């Protein structure tokens, strides 16, 4: 074992991190090695100095510490943090969970609709079977599409605004047509209840597309996340002089040049 390894143990001993076996062994080594004994003394001195000078016990002995006192950063840090978002996060989470449920339900409804075919009780109005069959499938496809859209919005953290125009037109047209059908008695109110899911999902999507509820926070987050003080610290020393004419030009600059030379 070379002296270097012994010195590692000696160093650990200075920090009280040696094992008892090492302590015995190193004591034996120190008895026979002046170099290491010497090194140990000097290392101990350096250690003591470092601890005293760099981290000293307390500013109580009239020695003011230069590193330790600094501005209390608590307020600065808390101010730089995004506003308390607990409530908002919970709200967003609840909304997205709800949307996911509605989307799944809508998807299942659509698939069931495909499988079941135009049941007599649920067909809108009294159309002939051929067209009503295809219309039935078409509306099933819509249900599936809307359900998939809801699930996508709920699962992804992307802004929902892309889905809004389609959904708005769909829901708007459906509401108008349903109202019309209801007035003219072409559909029982019970049937319309199933549109409630769609309407709720639509409202959630609208809510989620509000900038304040976006998953990545409000639009103005740039100056919240980025530590603004860094810019100032780095810009000051490298400040470029304002635009001006280059020295050998008319008048005073030339004269000043001469007098300087």
């Amino acid at each position, binding site marked *: 074992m070379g002296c270097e390894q012994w010195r590692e143990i000696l160093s650990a001993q*200075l*920090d009280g991190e040696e094992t008892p076996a090492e302590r015995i062994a190193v004591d034996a080594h120190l008895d026979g090695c002046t170099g290491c004994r010497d090194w140990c003394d000097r290392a101990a001195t350096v250690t003591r100095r470092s601890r005293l000078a*760099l*981290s000293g016990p307390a500013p109580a002995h009239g020695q003011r510490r230069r590193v330790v006192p*600094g501005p209390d*950063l*608590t307020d600065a840090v808390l101010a730089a943090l995004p506003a308390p978002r607990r409530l908002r996060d919970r709200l967003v989470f609840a909304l997205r969970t709800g949307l996911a449920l509605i989307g799944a339900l809508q998807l299942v409804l659509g698939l069931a609709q495909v499988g079941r075919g135009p049941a007599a009780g649920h067909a809108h109005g009294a159309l002939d079977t051929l067209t009503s069959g295809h219309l039935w499938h078409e509306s099933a496809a819509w249900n599936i599409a809307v359900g998939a859209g809801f699930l996508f919005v709920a699962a992804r953290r992307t802004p929902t605004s892309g889905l809004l125009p389609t959904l708005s037109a769909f829901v708007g047209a459906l509401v108008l047509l349903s109202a019309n059908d209801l007035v003219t008695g072409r559909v029982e109110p019970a049937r319309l209840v199933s549109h409630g899911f769609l309407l709720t999902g639509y409202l959630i999507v609208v809510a989620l597309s509000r900038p304040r509820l976006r998953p990545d926070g409000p639009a103005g987050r740039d100056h919240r996340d980025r530590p603004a003080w860094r810019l100032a*610290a780095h810009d000051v020393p490298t400040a470029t002089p304002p635009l001006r004419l280059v020295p050998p030009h008319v008048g005073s600059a030339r004269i000043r040049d001469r007098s300087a030379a």
Partner: protein
Amino acid sequence: MSDDDAEVTAWALAAGRGDREAAARFIRATQQHVRRFVAHLISPAEADDLTQETYLRAMRSLPSFAARSSARTWLLGIARRTAVDHVRAATSRPRTVPLSEWHDTPDTRGSGFDGEVVLNDLLLALPADRREAFVATQVLGLSYAEAAEVCGCPVGTIRSRVARAREDLVVLVEGNPRSIRRRPGSAAG
């Protein structure tokens, strides 16, 4: 120390659940530690900036802090990564840095800080990994195990880095006439 640590960890956990009062306590209790750490890793002039950045990072990842280690070592680990990133960013752009910013503060002269200034110069001359291990164990008073958590390396690595740092410092102190000339009168020696 461990009671204190447990308290700090509890504050960190509460802060992770959104308690701002606990976050303020957590910052107040730990900021001098963090400041001292980054001051010795990088430079005192940048200590405030780096400390703030450390806390901003820490606050962002507080919700996922699971108290597997004490909040103090967790935070110092973040401080260390902040310092490493800072060095990486600083070396990627040309800068003119004064030799040592420890000399810049006006009240250094004649007030007994020479030892500190010299030691900081010496410390900054050490390789980064040794400096890190030395500052964590000697200046912050962490145990080897805690320092290993902070630096993300095995305890044995910390042990050998501290030993190497000591060897370097012994050599540097011997070879630094200024420190030899100035030290004898000072009380710290």
